[in-house]
């Protein structure tokens, strides 16, 4: 089976698992667990079956009252998945990754139509922009909850997408906007602009969970390997990469989401997944 279809099946399977808290009459009453998602999804979604790891960390550090259980638990879940698969979870399981897969055609077309967008993507400052996600994680998930009680999840665009919007739609007239609504709306619009102009823009620059997973790519058991002896530097892989990685020269790149697009694009079969093989 072609890799992209396997990935699509996997993404829909995880989307289903993520939303197990639904009801079918008296037959199925939904599943709510005490687990944390190892990817980006909001527990405020009416059908969510687990907790957002960022919220757990925020609760753990809130107002400087260190609740280590809430801090360690999501980190250990992410750590375990990260050591096993690296950022493959971003490419194969994250529902927000699936959403960006759906919107990817737009930035791809924009890049072809407006060369300036391509130039921005290749600008020397672009690699540094990827550090924003680490800044978002440290500042909005850890520092502001400690010192001013402001939390990332209060303005999270994903919470807006899978929580605020469905709740408003399914309960017409049942809810009214609160003080966070309009700030979150602006953030959500910027999120939409981002994912419709830059392929995987959220994962590249802003995702705090991606920031947590990225270092694990350096030690993960599963990774993408480029056979440099067979590589002819045609750059087809780099052009196919949704994360904008210089694939021929990469070695366990923290940005790689192991989506496998480069593997499919390589005419020389010089790129492959490598797992549990140590030569």
């Amino acid at each position, binding site marked *: 089976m072609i890799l992209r279809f396997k990935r699509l099946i996997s993404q829909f399977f995880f989307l289903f698992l993520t939303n197990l808290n639904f009801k079918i009459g008296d037959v199925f009453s939904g599943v*709510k*667990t*005490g*687990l*944390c998602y190892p990817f980006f999804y*909001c*527990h*405020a979604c009416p059908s*969510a*079956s*687990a*907790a*957002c790891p960022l*919220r*757990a960390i*925020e*609760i753990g550090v*809130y107002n400087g*009252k260190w609740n280590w*259980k*809430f801090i*360690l*638990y999501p980190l*250990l*879940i992410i*750590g*375990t998945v990260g*050591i*096993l698969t690296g950022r493959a979870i971003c490419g194969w399981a994250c529902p927000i990754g699936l959403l960006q897969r759906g919107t990817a055609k737009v930035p791809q077309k924009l890049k072809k139509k407006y060369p300036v967008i391509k130039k921005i993507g290749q600008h020397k400052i672009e690699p540094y922009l990827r550090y924003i996600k680490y800044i978002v994680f440290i500042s909005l998930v850890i520092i502001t*909850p400690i010192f001013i*009680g*402001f*939390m990332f*999840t*209060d303005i*999270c665009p994903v*919470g*807006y997408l899978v*929580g*605020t919007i469905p*709740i*408003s739609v399914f309960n017409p*007239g*049942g*809810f*009214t*906007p*609160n*003080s*966070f*609504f309009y700030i*979150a709306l602006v953030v959500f619009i910027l999120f939409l602009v981002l994912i419709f102009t830059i392929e995987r823009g959220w994962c590249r620059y802003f995702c705090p969970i991606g920031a947590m997973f990225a270092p694990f790519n350096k*030690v*993960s*058991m599963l990774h993408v390997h480029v056979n440099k002896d067979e590589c002819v530097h045609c750059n087809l892989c780099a052009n196919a990469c949704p994360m904008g990685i210089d694939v021929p020269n990469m070695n366990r790149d923290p940005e790689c989401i192991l989506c496998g697009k480069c593997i499919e694009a390589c005419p020389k079969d010089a790129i492959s997944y490598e797992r549990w093989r*140590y030569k």
Partner: protein
Amino acid sequence: MKKIAAVQIALLVLVAGAGGAMLMYTDVYDNIHDTIVSTLCLSCIKLDPVSSLEFIFETGNGEEHSDFVLENLTTGIIFIEYRSDVCTACDIMAPTIKDIFDLSFEKEDTIYKLVDYNGSTVHFYHINLDHATKIQEDSFPIYDKDNRRGVPMFVVITVKYNRGPIDPCYTAAYGTLGIDSEEERRDFVIDMINDGIKLYEQNYEGYKYH
């Protein structure tokens, strides 16, 4: 075997082992379930539930009223403020509630006070669901009028004529009440309390606690 394989296996054993041990030997699973997954964070959804302030008899989950409520209703109305430790909307509302009842307490406290409110008795409960007793925790879905599962939730319980007997009835409001101004929020809560007291004064003589 390369050095990296040893590092990977060591890390996996350490991290997965610690995670598994946390799941098995601590209450973190239940805490996450109760605090995050089962209780809706109203600031997370950026919405406040709209609630009618009509006093109703039917409880949120169909269960009987809590015993501590039924007993206290013999002497006055009951006001309950439900909150959790980490809840921005609760922090916004806390000063308003403290000011109305002229009380001071920490958010982690779970307290009960008998308050003289303009000459009427009010049984005041501040219930932090992260530190509540089982009975207090169980009372939350009973008074969750619209099944919103959200905090903060403010409940006034009083008594009312129920086609024959005088029975306990209640109303609930959620979040920052859908109001931006602190003064209007204060007026809203005061109206809730006053409505409860009015009903109580009209009906309390017929109320019997069994």
